[in-house]
């Protein structure tokens, strides 16, 4: 089968529709992952083992099982339990939960990176635990985490094609629809690969910049 440029030009606008969804899913997923990871990290630090241990297990479980199956689970099982999410929302939650277990590790390392004296100084200043977290610890812990977090967001971006399995019409799904409709796979799939490659290479450059700017943990 030959590469057909006319066909490429014909399908490009449709593929760009998918690009929009892919980027949207990545952005929303990153936000969810950033928040979920923080929650996991803070709960796992709790001295109350009745709280920290189950959270540890849940996080390990999510990390140890495939995102694809989790997406199916969220999309098809949750409605039986009374929660019907739109495909995109289900996908974003799946991405966010899954990558939240990774960002939690980044937060953990970042928090441990803050000198112990800072906790003690905060106590000597009589700050409450909440004030200590929001005013003292996180403002110091977050900047060095940024590159590591960005790294996972890039990884997440590369997994968004999985959302096609729960009918989200992102780039990969658009490409497959085009392929199915025209019986031509070579152009759509290759274009998707090229798109991911280009974005990834650009983001690697961005990541280096972040690492220079904010340093690196771990």
């Amino acid at each position, binding site marked *: 089968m030959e590469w057909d440029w006319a066909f490429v030009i014909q399908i490009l606008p449709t593929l760009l529709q998918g690009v929009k969804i892919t980027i949207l899913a990545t952005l929303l997923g990153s936000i969810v992952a950033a928040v979920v990871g923080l929650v996991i990290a803070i709960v796992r630090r709790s001295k109350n083992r009745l709280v920290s241990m189950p959270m540890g297990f849940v996080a390990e479980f999510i990390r140890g099982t495939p995102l694809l199956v989790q997406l199916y689970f969220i999309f098809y099982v949750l409605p039986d339990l009374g929660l*019907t999410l739109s495909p995109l929302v289900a996908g974003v939650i799946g991405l966010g939960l899954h990558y939240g277990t990774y960002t939690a590790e980044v937060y953990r390392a970042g928090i441990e990176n803050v000198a112990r004296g800072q906790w003690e100084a905060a106590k000597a200043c009589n700050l409450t635990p909440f004030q200590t977290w929001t005013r003292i610890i996180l403002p110091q812990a977050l900047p060095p985490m940024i590159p590591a977090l960005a790294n996972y967001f890039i990884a997440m971006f590369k997994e968004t094609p999985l959302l096609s399995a729960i009918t989200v019409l992102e780039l990969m799904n658009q490409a*497959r629809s085009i392929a199915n*409709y025209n019986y031509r796979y070579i152009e759509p799939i290759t274009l998707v690969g090229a798109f991911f490659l280009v974005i990834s290479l650009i983001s690697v450059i961005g990541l280096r910049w972040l690492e220079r700017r904010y340093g690196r943990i771990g």
Partner: protein
Amino acid sequence: EDTLDKLKEQGFARIAIANEPPFTAVNPDGTVSGAGPDVARAVFAKLGVKDVVASISEYGAMIPGLQAGRHDAVTAGLFMKPERCNAVAYSEPILCDAEAFLVKKGNPKGFKSYADIAKDASATIGAPGGGTEERLSLEAGVPRDRVIVVPDGQSGLKMLQDGRIDVYSLPVLSINDLAKKANDPNIEVVAPVVGAPVYCDGAAFRKNDTALRDAFDKVLAEMKTSGEFAKIIEPYGFSAQAAMSTTREKLCAAK
């Protein structure tokens, strides 16, 4: 090299199926049944190919898979349409069916045809990816983003029940089978869809495997006259008469 000889030698033919009863089905023990594979198995046996090995595939992936040499034939209710006839070599018709809708009880939006769905700007329709129903929806003017590609029948049923789609469309017999299994008083079947023709599938072969196709046709024709054909497909609800009253030539020429 002759494909039939090769199949005889290796003792089996690789067929693509879809797991969409009653066209194709996978039993709990993993064996394959359904009208399509049963016919294929019988024809291949008479051709001297002892067995068929099935792999489940999306509709959209079947023709590329065939072209890529992953399958020797597609026997999955892949209805004959002119574009497909260009891409593969079909046998004479085997399984015929009209299209149907699965909708919520009472058909609240009153859908009777694909055009009705196109007209309702909020309606979404589920269909198998790369299947006839997806194409019919798009051709009737339903925009791409309202045609939800559903991986399999059970997912389609579930998405309808969960309110994620308004209509799920498959051939009549498939929808009936699905509705019967679901046993859900809140859904109902609309059949046949107005304006959608009755389609027939055939076994699809690689474009250059016409020799194999012709051999297949010859046996198939014998089975049709002997009544053996009807005995295989009618228990599944298909009409042998429908398949015998039309031809590949007609179906491939239809516009």
